[in-house]
């Protein structure tokens, strides 16, 4: 506990002293960096891999890499994979469709993409983060980039999660397929999946299907969590065809549908969540001059989300809340490699249409239904240019990246516009914003030391909910939320540093990042407004706070006890305050995880412990309370069996061994997490 208190003190001091940093200083810093670096003495020859990106990559499809050991739980949901990231926490409203947060920031501050494609959820209550519309069967990797380093695929404050689709990519592998099945005891989840792929040097096609069905889960102590069931399936196909030696056409389609999804932490469930995600692409090795790897893509996706409360007993008023989000977009990018430079040029754009409505049925059947548009058919058009340069500076590397974008939002529905004009009579139908991002990231090695540091500036436009939401009920703080189309852009100034020490057996990494976010967008109570939702405590309007500060730091250790046996440990501390030194909600308490992993030739075993300290820095105005400390343990065993050419991989494990009843700071309304759970997965691959 002493350590925690010390860390807390250090951070508080840091945050107090760093207030006056202005973004001009930061920008100046970025430009001054190269000069400063140039003066450094060369210590070591360049590493074979440029490790300037602090991206974290989570391997999802191990099948092609034949690296099953690295997966703690092969058929787990994508959400569980993402949760294994050091910077990602998942907000849980039930057993399904967790919302990823990165650096303790939510979806509106993140850029979440699928193969670079922008998708926006169709639920006004964030019940469908876009990570819920793909499944592990579609994906090979998740790239997690912190802060402005994630600006490649779109404007962001907190960072980016890009989910990379799994594809054959013209490798000479021929036909191969696989069958997978899994079962989890706690919520009786059964999973069945299959894939069939073909790839040669001219043509590839990957197809897969996965189906999951789960009943209610039980928290520790055999407490059934009502309305936590779900059922979903996902089908995808993607292929490529070489029209010439250096040119290829690609296409992909994903169809994902979930039905009967329970959200125990919310007052409503979901009867349908469906997405169609499709793209066609063109790839060419050379463009003109020295431009290489030209890659372009056209895409569209259509998300439909229908909330449903007909299965809930005792609702004060029944309501239908469907939402739709359609996005059309493109991007085109190419690399330019010069002597010491590696440039990436990218242009991209998207057009999104977000519409959501609410119909409430009065208890008196003679009264007419009550109708409102909660998202007034907002059309967002965004076009941007992204340029990055990785510079080799004789022993150190510098990556400079910038994104410039213009974004227009237009309220297309007259009914919705008039609704908002009740609050903002002078409101314009359309609003255009310029969005800017610039970052510099520097990497230097003095073996065995690695040093990374970065400074960046970026801003973002308010999300559809923040700008145009109309009486959106947040069950966490029990308030109705109303958007403000006049919000100014939120601006983030960020500094990060990472230092690691690496010897053959031992690796130690300490890192920290600090965000000073000007005009931080958050809901503030307006006592003059009357609640809409029956039982709500008040109405909040999205406002720009003067600023907020966020600080994240972690210490990461790895020690190879034996070549097959590795120990890892991670501790992290987070802090977020606003300009009045009030706590920002949803900031992680001190947390830790530790694991012991044995990887033999065909046998593997792992023991993992995760936990967090008491959440002392919480904000009751946002519905938070003191979340208690917890520690949970899990144990897994894996074994590979070979039959002729084919192989079968079995993984067995038990999570939350001691059946602890706990919830974390990200659990919506403190719904308890799953209790003891046994799982078994079998993957059979046919080569």
């Amino acid at each position, binding site marked *: 506990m002493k350590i925690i208190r010390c860390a807390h003190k250090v951070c508080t001091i840091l945050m107090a002293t760093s207030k006056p940093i202005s973004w001009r200083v930061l920008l100046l810093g970025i430009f001054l960096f190269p000069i400063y670096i140039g003066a450094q003495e060369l210590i070591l020859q360049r590493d074979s891999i440029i490790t300037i990106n602090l991206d974290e990559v989570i391997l999802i499809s191990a099948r092609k890499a034949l690296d099953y050991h690295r997966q703690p739980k092969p058929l787990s949901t994508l959400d569980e994979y993402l949760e294994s990231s050091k910077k990602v926490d998942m907000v849980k409203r039930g057993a399904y469709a967790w919302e990823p947060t990165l650096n303790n920031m939510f979806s509106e501050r993140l850029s979440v993409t699928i193969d670079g494609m922008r998708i926006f959820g169709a639920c006004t209550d964030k019940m469908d983060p876009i990570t819920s519309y793909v499944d592990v069967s579609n994906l090979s990797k998740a790239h997690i980039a912190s802060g402005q380093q994630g600006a490649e695929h779109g404007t962001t404050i907190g960072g980016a999660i890009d989910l990379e689709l799994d594809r054959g990519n013209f490798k000479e592998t021929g036909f191969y397929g696989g069958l997978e099945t899994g079962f989890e005891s706690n919520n009786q989840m059964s999973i069945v999946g299959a894939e069939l792929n073909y790839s040669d040097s001219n043509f590839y096609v990957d197809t897969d299907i996965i189906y999951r069905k789960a009943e209610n889960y039980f928290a520790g102590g055999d407490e059934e969590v009502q309305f936590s069931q779900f059922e979903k399936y996902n089908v995808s196909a993607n292929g490529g065809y070489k029209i010439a030696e250096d040119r290829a056409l690609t296409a992909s389609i994903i169809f994902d549908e979930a039905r009967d999804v329970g959200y125990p932490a919310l007052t409503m469930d979901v009867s349908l969540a469906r997405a169609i995600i499709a793209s066609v692409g063109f790839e060419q090795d050379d463009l003109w001059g020295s431009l290489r790897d030209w890659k372009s893509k056209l895409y569209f996706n259509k998300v439909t989300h229908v909330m449903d409360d007909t299965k809930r007993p005792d609702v004060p008023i029944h309501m239908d809340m469907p939402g739709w989000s359609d996005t059309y977009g493109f991007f085109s990018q190419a690399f330019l490699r010069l002597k010491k430079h590696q440039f990436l040029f990218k242009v991209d754009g998207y057009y999104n249409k977000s519409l959501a409505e609410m119909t*409430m049925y009065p208890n008196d059947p003679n009264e*007419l239904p009550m109708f409102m548009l909660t998202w007034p058919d907002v059309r967002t058009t965004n076009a941007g240019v992204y340029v990055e340069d990785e510079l080799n500076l004789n022993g150190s590397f510098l990556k400079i990246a910038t994104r410039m974008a213009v974004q227009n939002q237009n309220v297309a529905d007259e009914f919705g516009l008039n609704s908002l004009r009740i609050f903002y009579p002078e409101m314009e139908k359309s609003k255009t914003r310029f969005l800017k991002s610039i970052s510099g990231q520097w990497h230097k090695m003095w073996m065995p030391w690695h040093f990374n540091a970065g400074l960046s500036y970026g801003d973002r436009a308010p999300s559809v909910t923040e700008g145009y939401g109309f009486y959106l009920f947040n069950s966490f703080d029990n308030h109705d939320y109303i958007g403000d189309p006049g919000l100014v852009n939120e601006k983030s100034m960020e500094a990060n540093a990472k230092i690691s020490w690496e010897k053959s057996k031992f690796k130690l990494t300490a890192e920290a990042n600090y965000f000073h976010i000007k005009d931080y967008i958050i809901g503030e109570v307006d006592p003059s407004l*009357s*609640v809409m939702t029956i039982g709500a405590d008040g109405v909040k309007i999205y406002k720009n706070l003067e600023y907020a500060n966020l600080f994240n730091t972690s210490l990461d250790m790895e020690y190879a006890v034996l070549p097959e046996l590795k120990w890892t440990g991670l501790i992290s501390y987070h802090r977020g305050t606003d300009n009045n030194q009030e706590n920002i909600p949803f900031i992680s308490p001190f947390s830790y995880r530790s694991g012991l992993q044995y990887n033999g030739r065909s046998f593997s075993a792992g023991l993992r412990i995760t936990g967090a300290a008491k959440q002392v820095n919480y904000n009751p105005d946002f519905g938070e309370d003191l979340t208690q400390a917890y520690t949970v343990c899990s144990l897994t065993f894996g074994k590979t069996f070979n039959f002729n050419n084919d192989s079968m991989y079995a993984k067995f494990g038990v999570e939350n061994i001691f059946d602890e009843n706990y919830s974390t700071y990200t659990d919506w309304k403190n719904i308890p997490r799953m209790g003891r759970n046994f799982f078994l997965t079998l993957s059979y691959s046919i080569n």
Partner: protein
Amino acid sequence: MKTIKSFIVTFIVALVLGSCTSDGDDTPKMDENPMAEFNLLASIAANGHSLELYSEGNNGFTTGYNEIFVRIKNNADESYFANPQITWLPVMHMSSMNHSCPKSDLAVTEEHNTVAKGYIIFQMPGNADEFWDITFTYTVEGQEYSLTETIDVAAPSDGKQKVTSFMGSDDIRYVLAMVEPTDPQVAINDIRAMLFKMENMMSFPIVENYSVTLDPRMPSMGNHSSPNNVDLTYDSNAKSYNGKLSLTMTGYWKLNLKLLNDTGVVLKGEDVTVENEASSLYFELEF
């Protein structure tokens, strides 16, 4: 030469006369039927004439504010009398007494000189034993005629209160009627109401310079209210009380009101609070 001169003079005189007599012309304009888009509520045959009553949107007389268009047809040649002088008197025949209601004068419209326009505010519907009639007294071609017709006044089809008759704390009976919105929207609507006091059974003059506070609520939504409403104040040009009404969603709204006189004394109505869900003075809307 003379004949030509006199011809030109006659021609010019005719032209001048023809062009400046349009206002005072007693000949009906033979244009398109000005009432084509309106609903015929009643056609009363008497005295060799047919007195026709029209409404712009309604199919019948309802309690509350009724805008009514009147024209008189000469049954002999199917033409309509221009600039008819009409007065009207609606009367409710109750079991114990008779009384009238607030009404305007009937004035010929600017657009069509065969059409007169006015409003009647019925405070109550008729029923099996009690009924409304309207006596029209009109002068056409220099002769005065009179007729009385019984009419059906129904409560609005949605049963919502658009007019209220009440005793103020000053012991004066008032009638307050909502004129607008007739087509409410999820938006900031213009709200217009008219206030009359009952001088006697037959006289209901307009009350000026009072004010009406407005607090719209949705009883089915836990008495949800809306922001940016504007209380109704007297507009001497329109002779009505005008304000702004915000409606955040469709459905049933109860517009809770308070009537204040020109010195700010509350004559009727109460504030809506947690304990007091509604005012005794209110209008209703459902859309």
